[in-house]
């Protein structure tokens, strides 16, 4: 039963509406901004701050996925393409009330010697990517990056990349998520690229033979 993107949108919308505990957007943005500024003061190295934000996001993501799966009661995604759709339309919608645009990229050409012709894009294979393009970013309301942050390469909302990575790892997908562009840095759009590294095997619980 293939869910269409409209169905995902509806699920996302319902989840968002169904939540009773919402938080003031300004408070949220101010809190996150204060967090980033504090990290910058503590680490004084923008690459390190990016890493820390991603780590924090990872921790959030590993916990968030349980909440998400419990509320949405969505089953396993058929392929990575569907993962992208669900993340954008249901995930981001239900937690941040934003719906980034998803564009899917096929895997890079596999250098398999057994095939003579170009294999069709296998959306399930390692190397598949999808891009999330954000029209709005509730984390970065009112934010203007100072010169040093621009030069130092700060990705202000890097926590989002960590959340994606953490959440997907808990459902047996190892991905890399990274910002490609950010309007805070003067780019045209804010985009995250998520690349599938591999599917994780089910781990045998410790103690079993």
């Amino acid at each position, binding site marked *: 039963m293939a869910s269409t993107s409209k169905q995902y949108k509806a699920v996302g919308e319902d989840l968002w509406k169904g939540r009773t505990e919402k938080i003031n957007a*300004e408070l949220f*943005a*101010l809190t996150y*901004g*204060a967090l*980033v*500024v504090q990290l910058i003061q503590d680490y004084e190295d923008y690459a390190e701050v990016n890493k820390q934000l991603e780590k924090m996001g990872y921790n959030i993501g590993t916990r968030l996925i349980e909440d998400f799966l419990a509320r949405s009661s969505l089953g396993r995604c058929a392929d990575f393409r569907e993962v992208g759709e669900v993340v954008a339309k249901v995930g981001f919608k239900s937690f941040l009330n934003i719906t980034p645009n998803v564009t899917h990229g096929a895997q890079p050409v596999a250098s398999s010697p057994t095939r003579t012709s170009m294999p069709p894009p296998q959306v399930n294979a390692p190397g598949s990517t999808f891009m999330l393009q954000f029209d709005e970013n509730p984390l970065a*309301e*009112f*934010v*203007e*990056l*100072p010169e040093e*942050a621009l030069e130092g390469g700060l990705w202000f909302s890097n926590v989002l990349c960590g959340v994606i990575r953490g959440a997907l790892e808990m459902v047996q997908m190892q991905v890399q998520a990274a910002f490609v562009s950010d309007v805070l840095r003067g780019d045209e759009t804010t985009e995250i690229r998520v690349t599938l590294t591999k599917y994780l095997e089910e781990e045998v619980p410790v103690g079993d033979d």
Partner: protein
Amino acid sequence: MSHHLFLLSPSDTPLYNLTHYSSKPSQSTSSPLASNLPSWSTSAFAGTLTALSGASSATQTQHGQGGTVKIGAGQDRHVIQMIANASLDAIEEVMRKDSVMYLKSVDKFNEWTVSAFVTPGNMKFVLLHESRNDDGIKAFFSDVWELYVKTMLNPFHTAHTPIRSAVFDSRVRASAKKYL
């Protein structure tokens, strides 16, 4: 016909100033950015303020050199700042009595009128202007207030420090063009 805007923190530190000529479409280059507030201007403030008034309300803790105050009307930068400073006493007087935000014109000096706007956070916006334009000035102050609040919400901005944001600057200029 020119206007001079000063944004002052509760401790009367200048955080931003702007000179706007409403006759010309292009803005003046007379250093509107707060980066043009070097220590000399702060000391000029202190010097002129203590020189002009024996007002006890102005408890300036800045140790400025007594700036050379040129008496006389005109476009001289020192005079402009002196006038702005002198008006601070009048502003504080009115502040104590009334608790409105927009204090219309609080002071007059030769051909310059000083209008003031005090935000709930005790930031003072002081505008020197030559002509009467109450409605326009009120609208302009409201606009500047909104822009100021948005700047304060930027996590990278420290409260009561000079405002150097280019976005803020360009928006204030646009607003000045619109209302003044």
